[in-house]
C-alpha cells in the first residue's frame, strides 16, 4: 500500500530559503542544503523547491541550488518556478531535479504540458495550480498570485491531466502562509476531478491539518513554515499522522 507523503517545501531566492504570506513579504528561512538534509533525516518523503527569484541572475542561482541539494539528497526533488519551456525543464533535470513543476507558462501556452510529458514522461510533469476563491468557486491565479485569469481551477486541473500532467500541486492562495489549514473543499473538488496524485498546499500549521487534507482526497501534503520555523519536525508530524490513522513511512 502506498503511503501518504509529507513534503517540506523550500521557496528559494538567490540561493537562500525564504517564506512569505500569500506569496509576499519574503523573509530568510535558512540554507537550502542544510534544510534539505535535515528534512530527509527527519523522514521527509520528498522535497519541493520553488524558485521565487525575479531576475535572470536569480534563475542561474536556482540551478546551482538544485545541484548543491542533489549532491546530499537521496529522496525525490521537484523543482518549479520560472519554467518557460522544455529546455528550462531539461536544465533543471540535468542539475538534479526528478520532477519539474510548471505554472504560469502552462497557463499561457498549454502545449507546454504535452511537450514535457512526451519528452520526460508524465511522472516527471507536475502542474502547479494556485487557486483563489471567487464568488462561484476557485479562480486560477498566476505570476505569484499577482494576476487573476478567470479560469476555473477544477476544470483546469482536469484539462492539464488530459494533456499529460502526472501530478497536481494544488495551492490555496487564500490560505498560503496563514496557518489556517488547507482549503479542504478545493482539495476535494480537484481530487475528484482527476486521476493523478494531488499534493495539498497552502495553510498547514499542524498534523491535524495534514490529516484533514489526506482524509479529503490529497495523496500528499506540502508544508513550509511549520517545518522551517522549528515549530515541529517532519518525524513528529508523521508520528502524529500515524496515530490519527494515516498510513505513513516512519
Amino acid at each position, binding site marked *: *500500500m*502506498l*503511503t*501518504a*507523503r509529507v513534503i517540506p517545501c523550500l521557496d528559494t531566492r538567490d540561493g537562500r530559503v525564504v517564506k512569505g504570506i500569500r506569496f509576499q513579504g519574503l523573509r530568510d528561512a535558512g540554507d537550502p542544503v542544510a534544510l534539505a538534509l535535515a528534512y*530527509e533525516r527527519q523522514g521527509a*518523503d*520528498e522535497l519541493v523547491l520553488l524558485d521565487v527569484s525575479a531576475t535572470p541572475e536569480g534563475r542561474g542561482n536556482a540551478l546551482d541550488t538544485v*545541484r548543491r541539494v*542533489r*549532491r*546530499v*539528497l*537521496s*529522496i*525525490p*526533488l521537484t523543482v518549479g518556478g520560472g519554467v518557460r519551456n522544455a529546455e528550462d525543464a531539461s536544465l533543471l*533535470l*540535468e*542539475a*538534479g*531535479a*526528478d*520532477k519539474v513543476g510548471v505554472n504560469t507558462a502552462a497557463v499561457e501556452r498549454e502545449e507546454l504540458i504535452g511537450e514535457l510529458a*512526451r*519528452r*520526460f*514522461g*508524465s*511522472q*516527471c510533469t507536475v502542474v502547479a495550480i494556485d487557486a483563489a476563491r471567487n464568488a462561484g468557486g476557485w479562480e486560477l491565479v498566476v505570476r505569484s498570485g499577482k494576476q487573476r485569469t478567470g479560469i476555473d481551477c477544477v476544470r483546469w486541473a482536469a484539462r492539464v491531466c488530459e494533456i499529460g500532467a*502526472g*501530478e497536481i500541486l494544488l495551492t490555496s492562495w487564500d490560505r498560503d502562509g496563514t496557518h489556517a489549514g488547507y482549503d479542504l473543499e478545493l482539495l476535494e473538488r480537484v481530487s475528484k476531478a482527476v*486521476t*493523478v*496524485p494531488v499534493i495539498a498546499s497552502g495553510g498547514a500549521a499542524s498534523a491535524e491539518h495534514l490529516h484533514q487534507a489526506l482524509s479529503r482526497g490529497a*495523496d*500528499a501534503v506540502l508544508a513550509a513554515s511549520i517545518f522551517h520555523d522549528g515549530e515541529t519536525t517532519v518525524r513528529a508530524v508523521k508520528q502524529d499522522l500515524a496515530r490519527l490513522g494515516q498510513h505513513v*513511512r516512519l
Partner: protein
Amino acid sequence: MTSAPLVFVVRTGAANLASVMAGLERLGARPRLTRDPAEVASADYLVLPGVGAFGAAIDELGSHGLIEALRERIEDDRPSLCVCLGLQLLARSSEESPGVSGLGVLPLDAGRFAGPVRVPQLGWNRIEPEPGCRLLQAGHVYFANSYRLTEKPPGWNVAWSEYGGRFVAAVERGNVLGCQFHPELSSTLGQALLGRWLSMEPQPC
C-alpha cells in the same frame, strides 16, 4: 566494495541521470556516462536508468547498438542494475508502446496499472522480497511509474509490492538487479541496496 569502483551509466535520452550519478558518488563510486556498446557489454558495473517512454528508450538503445550489448552482459551475469523503465526494457513488450520489442531477457509483458488507483504511482510503497533474494530487503521504497510487471520471471527471485493488485517491485538473478522503484531516491534503504549491489564481484572478461 573495491575502492572507488568505476560504474558506467547508460546515457538514455530523457532520463534524469543526476540523481543516479549523485547516489553512486555518495557511495564512493565513480559514475561515468556511456553509449559505447563495448563499454556497455564489458563494464565491471553498469546501470541502465530509465525515465520516459518504452518505445523511445528502445529506439535510443537500438540506434547506438546497445541492445545486444545489454543482453550479452546480463546473460554473462555481469553486475548490472536496471532502474524503473530500465527494468521494463528487459521484458518482451509494454502496453505503453504496442508493437515495440523489448530486450526479451524476461519473458513477460509490462502493463498499465489497473483498478481504482491513481496513475502514475508516485510515492513510497512497501516491498517484500521472496526467500532467496540476496540483495533485496523489505521496506518502503520510492516508485514513479504507470506501467509494471505482474508475474515472476522463471529463474529470477522477485520482491513484490501492491498497488491496484500485486506487482513486481524488483527482480534479481546472480549479479543482475532490476528495480521498478528508484534506489537512488529511496533514502537510506536505497543507498544500502546500491551499496550491496556495488559489493558484487566483477566478472573477469
